[in-house]
Every structure is written in structure tokens, then in C-alpha cells.
């Protein structure tokens, strides 16, 4: 019997359907759990926080959601070793909740994905996220090959990693940057970073590796039909590049 994955829906979440569908296509037993059913979260084995605008990004992106009752269960579950994946706004919530990079205590953020540089513009385009740690650093990435390059869509105004110098040092020393922006061929350089994110970071993990907060959306390149480099004759419903992260997550959950 496969483990149960809860896809959390806050007021304002907008990527839950494709997130659930891709998790299911990757073999996960994923269900949507709306904020009004927060108490049911204790019965799930893993949590996925999709993108959107939870609580309309009021105060700061993810700030109100980090205090939503649903996050009580996510914080408790993460402490017990349950797998937690946050994408885009889900990633912002995980940082506001202190779960990633997890160098402080719960709900005491030590970093944020904040306004893009050099201008705080909405950036929506295909990017590539390259695994920047050994795959075994996180159970969520353990099924990926070293240096895996995943296509994903960045779609945010606030995706730039920022922290104080002291916290940035902890992020570096603790190998918390799980993915960095890269070119399609895996080359890492500043031109691949769409938003001046510190350390070129696209995703952070916590100390134990069971929490992953990734800003670009792998699920928006989850099937061939939305993969720009698909070839004529490809099965358009087949999983594409972005699906590999979800597959690896599902594998970790079911392990």
C-alpha cells in the first residue's frame, strides 16, 4: 500500500490540480486537502504545498499561511521525518514557517524568497534547476542522478533568495542549497539566474533533507504537451523533464 500524500490547498492556492495530477502520474497516492479540513492532515504521510497566492500574499508571501492551522501538522510532521515539498508559493510558505532552510526554529524565518532583482518584476519563463548537492543529501532527491538538470517554469515576482550574511553563511555551510539555476546543458553561471537569487539558489532543503522548497514549477513541465522541446511523434501525455523530481519525491515517500 502506497503512502498517502496531502496536497495542501490554502485560500489562494492555484496550482493544486496539476500538482496532484503529476504526483498521481508518478505513482503517488495524492489527495487535495483544503484548509477547512486541516485536522485530517495528521493522517497523511507526506505533504506538498503547491504554488499560488496563499491568503493573497498578505503581509508577505507565505507569512499568513505559515501561521495557518494546516502548518501545525506540516511542522509537526516534518519534525517526525515526513517528506515535505513546497513549490513556488509553497516554497515561500516553508521559508516563512522556518522549515527551510530550517536553521532557526519553527515560524522564525531565517531566509526568504523575496522580490526579484534587479527589478521586482514578474518573471515567467522556462528555467533549468540543477541538483547542487549529492543526491543522497535529501531523500527527496535520492533517486536523481548527480547533477540532474530539471526543466521548470519560474513564475513569480518574489523568487530571489535573501538572508542576512550570518544566515547565508549557515545556508552555505549546511549545504542547504539543493538546486541552483543553470543553463539547459547544466552549465552554472550568472546568466542562468533569472532574478539575482543569492547563491544562484532555486531550491533549499533543511538539515535532515526531508523538506524541499523549490521556486520554479517542475509540474509546469511535467508532461510532453507543455515541454517546449518535445519532438514530433512524442507521446504528448508522457511525463517530461519536470516529472523526475516528483517521481523522486514519490519514491522517497513510499520508501
Amino acid at each position, binding site marked *: 500500500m502506497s503512502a498517502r500524500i496531502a496536497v495542501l490547498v490554502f485560500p489562494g492556492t492555484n496550482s493544486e490540480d496539476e500538482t496532484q495530477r503529476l504526483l498521481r502520474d508518478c505513482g503517488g497516492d495524492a489527495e487535495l486537502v483544503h484548509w477547512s479540513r486541516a485536522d485530517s492532515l495528521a493522517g497523511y504521510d507526506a505533504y506538498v504545498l503547491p504554488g499560488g497566492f496563499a*491568503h*493573497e500574499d*498578505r*503581509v*508577505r508571501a507565505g*507569512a*499568513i499561511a505559515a*501561521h495557518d492551522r494546516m502548518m501545525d501538522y506540516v511542522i509537526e510532521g516534518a519534525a517526525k521525518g515526513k517528506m515535505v515539498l513546497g513549490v513556488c508559493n509553497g516554497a515561500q510558505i516553508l521559508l*516563512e514557517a522556518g522549515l527551510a532552510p530550517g536553521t532557526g526554529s519553527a*515560524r522564525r*524565518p*531565517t*531566509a*526568504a524568497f*523575496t*522580490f526579484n*532583482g534587479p527589478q521586482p518584476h514578474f518573471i515567467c519563463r522556462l528555467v533549468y534547476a540543477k541538483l547542487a548537492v549529492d543526491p543522497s543529501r535529501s531523500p527527496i532527491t535520492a533517486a536523481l542522478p548527480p547533477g540532474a538538470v530539471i526543466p521548470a517554469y519560474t513564475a513569480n515576482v518574489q523568487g*530571489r533568495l*535573501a*538572508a*542576512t*550574511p550570518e*544566515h547565508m553563511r549557515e545556508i552555505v555551510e549546511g549545504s542547504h542549497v539543493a538546486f541552483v539555476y543553470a543553463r539547459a546543458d547544466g552549465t552554472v553561471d550568472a546568466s542562468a539566474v533569472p532574478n*539575482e537569487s543569492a547563491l544562484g539558489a532555486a531550491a533549499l532543503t533543511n538539515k535532515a533533507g526531508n523538506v524541499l522548497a523549490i521556486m520554479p514549477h517542475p509540474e509546469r513541465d511535467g508532461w510532453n504537451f507543455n515541454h517546449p522541446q518535445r519532438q514530433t511523434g512524442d507521446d504528448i501525455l508522457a511525463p517530461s523533464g519536470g516529472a523526475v523530481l516528483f517521481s523522486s519525491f514519490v519514491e522517497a515517500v513510499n520508501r
Partner: protein
Amino acid sequence: MSERAIAIRLKIPDNEAYTALTALRALDVQVERLERSEVWLVEDTGDAATLAARVETNEAIFNPNKHRLAVLDATAPRSGEAWVYELPATGGADPIARPTMGGKTIPGVSNARRYIGWRLLDGSGAPVARRALESALERLLCNPAIEKALY
């Protein structure tokens, strides 16, 4: 050249302030009313009496249908109030000073710094104690990784 502070507030219901108030009360912060404003600290060579009128021409930050604008008496937060700003990406602890407000030049105005003002009041309309303000900042209103608060 004089330093002046301007506060722009919604005159329609402020849903964001209400959400923040609800969240703070759930976090046991002792506050009954919360006012949110966009605060601008500017250097101005113009006539103080006309500053409001000059800024009100900037439709990027002021909409007369939903905002009211006030030139404040002081250039620092009042009791029970904090001004929160984002730390610059380039480092340093001071807010970025720009020649424009919301991307637009205002005659006489320079070195414009933007803050979000949060004013916390108790049931009688008096400012909350400093401890309650600090608790609100620490628990919700200011992410110290990227923001700083003046109070």
C-alpha cells in the same frame, strides 16, 4: 531641503490589515485595532503646504478613489507604530533611497524611502505597549532575514 514623512492609507476597508489583525490575535498579541499605511520619507525642497498636492498627482502610488494622504507631523514612527522596510539586496541596513516615488518624479522631492507602517492600538484607541508591538513584529510583521523595522 527638509525631511518630511507622508502616509498613504486606504479609505476603503483594508482587508490586508484585517487579516494581519486576525493573525496577530490568534498569536495572542494584545491588539484590538491595526492600521496599515504606506509611509514615504522624502527630502523636499518645495513648499511644505503643497507637498500633499504634489504627491497626489502620482497615480502610481495614490488613487483618490481609495486612498487618503497625510503629511505627518514627525519623521519617525509614533508610539505603537513600526515602519517596516526591506533590506537592500546589495547589503547594508538602510532602506534604499530613490529619486522617484513609485517610479515617478515629484517636483522638489528626492531621496524617497518607502516603508510599510503598522500602527497597533488597544480597545480604547491608545497605542499598544512596546512589548506588544515587538511581539507583533517578531511573530508576523517583520521577517528579520529580509526586513527591518523602525519603532
